[in-house]
């Protein structure tokens, strides 16, 4: 008798929890793969394709599917560390074949040499180049990610990648240095 009661109670509980889980899976369904978005959030969004994928999101998808986390030179060591933290993987050195982590750059078009071919406009992954056929093009500096993709297609080589200079607004404190000796007892 006890056995039967136990079985009945457990089956009943199983039914209830099953119903709750079933309801929750419909009600709280998450569209898309949240881990891909999380990985994509960590990636620098340069959209440079140095990882071998056509942009940051595809690489995020690839990482979620098991690809290595060290293929993003713009993200650098800090990026690898952030990905390792997020995914609980080992920190590994950057894949040197993919390129080196350089200073942040932006594209600059030498405007009087530009012939207005629009090839760079088509190459820019973030629509940061402005221009029209046979008219001069220019880069919207604030939107440029420094991905380098516009340099290659330019038939007249009029695009330079320039380092972003340090200014008062992006200057940051470095190694500490103490002021004067005021350690006297008052």
């Amino acid at each position, binding site marked *: 008798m006890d056995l039967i009661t136990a079985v009945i109670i457990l089956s009943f509980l199983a039914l209830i929890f099953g119903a709750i889980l079933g309801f929750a899976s419909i009600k709280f369904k998450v569209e898309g793969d949240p881990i891909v978005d999380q990985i994509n959030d960590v990636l620098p969004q340069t959209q440079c394709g140095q990882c071998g994928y056509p942009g940051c999101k595809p690489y995020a998808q690839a990482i979620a599917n098991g690809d290595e986390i060290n293929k993003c030179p713009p993200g650098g060591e800090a990026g690898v560390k952030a990905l390792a933290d997020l995914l609980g993987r080992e920190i590994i050195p950057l894949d040197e074949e993919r390129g080196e982590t350089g200073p942040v750059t932006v594209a600059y078009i030498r405007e009087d040499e530009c012939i207005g071919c629009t090839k760079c406009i088509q190459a820019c992954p973030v629509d940061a180049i402005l221009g029209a056929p046979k008219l001069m093009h220019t880069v919207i500096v604030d939107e440029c990610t420094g991905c380098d993709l516009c340099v290659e297609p330019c038939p007249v080589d009029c695009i330079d990648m320039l380092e972003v200079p340090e200014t008062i607004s992006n200057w940051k404190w470095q190694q500490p240095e103490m002021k004067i*000796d005021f350690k006297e007892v008052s």
Partner: protein
Amino acid sequence: MERSTFKSEIPIYQIPGGIHPAEHKTESNQAAIQKLPLGKEFTINLKAQAGKRCLPVVSVGDKVLKGQVIAESDGIFSSYQHAPTSGTITAIEKLPIAHPSGMKDLCIRLEADSQDQWCDLKATKKYQELNREQLLARIFEAGIVGLGGASFPSHIKLQRQDGIKTLILNAAECEPYISCDDRLLQEHSKQILEGAMVIAQLYDDIEVIVGIEDNKPKAIQALVDAREACNKKNIKIAVVPTKYPSGGEKQLIQLLTGKEVPKGGLPADLGIVMHNVATCFAIYEAIIEGKPLIKRLVTLTGEGCNQPGNYWVPIGTPIHELVSATNSNRANHYIMGGPMMGFDIQNTEAGIIKATNCVIMNQQNPRDAEMACIRCGACMDACPASLLPQQLYWHAKSDEFEKAEEYDLFDCIECGACAYVCPSNIPLVQYYRYAKSSIRNQRVEKSKADKARERHEARQERLERVKREKAEKHRKAAEARRKAAEAAGQDDAKKAAVAAALARVQAKKKNQKEESS
């Protein structure tokens, strides 16, 4: 140092932590305020206030009068800059500025014509007749910013009206060496209280408290006398014990009200607005005399300074002129601000800004070597914000910025009390500054990355859409062609039918003719 015996008129609460460094105030606070001989050249930094850089409204070669606007506010969260004397604009370019980085930034250089001729001033003796908007506009146009050190535009601080019940005048001046507020109170208490009355007029009903440390007995006496003279009995004088950093905004509020400014909040959330006494003086001059903020009182002091004291210095005066004016050629190291929170000046070409309350001139001392943290916890006891400095230090040192943020890094006021007590000479504050500036840069990068992602996604979507539209167009064109072809086919059939019919008719006619003939 001499302590005041004046009894505080409101109860004083406690703040945690704090230190008692050697005060070094008597070097500079004994002599009366002096004026420097008019300089030849002035370098006015356009990004010297919190907020946006001001926009120059003069060009090179322009002649300007003293007090004339030379740079306009860029939007509301910025300020105005005025010519400190009459003369000619000789440059608008990147010049050395007073900044810990030692970098150059956009400045206006003015060559004095030694006439020192004022432009027309809009003095208002009866400020009571001005309404709130007019007063705020005057304060804005006079380029008034907080003179206590943060250079926060005053008109923004004064904008919020509802719920403000208390105006605190900050006269604590807790940092060693600095005595400009002390001296200003001793000589200009009346004007300061007038300025405070102008501020009080912006609010319906406001209580005015002056918070001052007990190491300024003469200033306290001057305040009491001035209050008597202007018959402003409702102003209360709160004397707090001398302890660094009682003059911090949050610290002084806690001392005078016992309340803590909420994390990430503003004093206004507690119904309090606080202004430095020097700011009150500047507001007095701006409203009653119509003079914009073009000079400030600066303490020149330090072991290397030959004539220490407090001087009226026009904004933009290069540091080297201060050095030569006080014959301080023994000095080779200059600090802007106090020894606790100030920073080294790397180029003496840089001009004085509105926030410069003190320049310390001394000889470069080699810094004691930094040693390992022994986890003594002295920094924790000294911290006025009740933080855990050694935890912040560990995390800042190992670039674990997120953890440092979890330990409320951004509540740190960078007062330096922790570094002062550290037995291992660890320059703690600079680790925090390093962490803070790194986090700020990371945030900027993150928002840039988010924008890049949005733009990339928008582009992908657009390319997709263009592709779809093209395909759709091709499909429609093909359909149209097919229909046209079909229509053409039908036409042929009709023509054939007509032709056949005609042929039949003709054949019939022919037959009829043959039959009849």
